[in-house]
């Protein structure tokens, strides 16, 4: 298992850079994960999405559907992609410390 430093800690990551243990996550880890997705600074809008994803995951042990994410955070789909260019699944979920979403695209 590859390891990389995020938020001052050496963490296990998979081949796509998702941290393996969601318990390792904190805001400093998120900030470093965001840089791997081309997001140099997490704004208030980024944090709104990240915290919603994380709270949802901790409650239901799964990521929300994209439409639910849009409705609950008030962002249009395009706005989510503007904030996280690799998308809600591969980008925002990674920054929020969630497991890698399934699928092959």
């Amino acid at each position: 298992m590859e390891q990389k430093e995020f938020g001052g800690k050496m963490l296990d990551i998979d081949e796509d850079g998702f941290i393996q243990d969601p318990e390792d996550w904190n805001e400093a880890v998120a900030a470093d994960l965001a840089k791997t997705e081309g997001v140099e600074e997490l704004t208030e809008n980024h944090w709104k999405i990240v915290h919603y994803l994380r709270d949802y995951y901790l409650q239901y042990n799964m990521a929300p559907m994209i439409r639910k994410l849009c409705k609950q955070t008030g962002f249009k789909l395009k706005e989510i992609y503007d904030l996280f260019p690799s998308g809600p699944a591969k980008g925002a979920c990674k920054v929020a410390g969630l497991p890698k979403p399934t699928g092959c695209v």
Partner: protein
Amino acid sequence: MDLITVAREAGLEFKVNVRGHEFSSDMSVSDGGRDAAPAPAELVGGALGACIAMMVQAYCDTCGYTDGEVGVSLAVELGDNPKRVAGFVIDLELPADVPEEKYDVIMRVAEKCSIHETLANPPRVDIDIT
């Protein structure tokens, strides 16, 4: 409809020819391709988005709604076991002069596009090795 042909370009990239129009499809680097073109599932999403946009634009043109253009933002949701497209999430933008009371009609127009109908009523797929 005319014959659609698919021929290898390089690696996992394939060139699609439709009535002389050419485009490619490839897989992402993490899935073994070179990311030289959209993945097949993304092309399905693009086809759905384009089809909805065309139908709704035609409706708006007919009704004289001209303050802006129709636009679509679309995300493909993936599923496993079996690997597949599990869903499409679509934001539809309308000209600013479309009244809100027409939104229900426009939703029905969007859902009547041929790709939406195809996905709602899965077609037969007949594969033979030749």
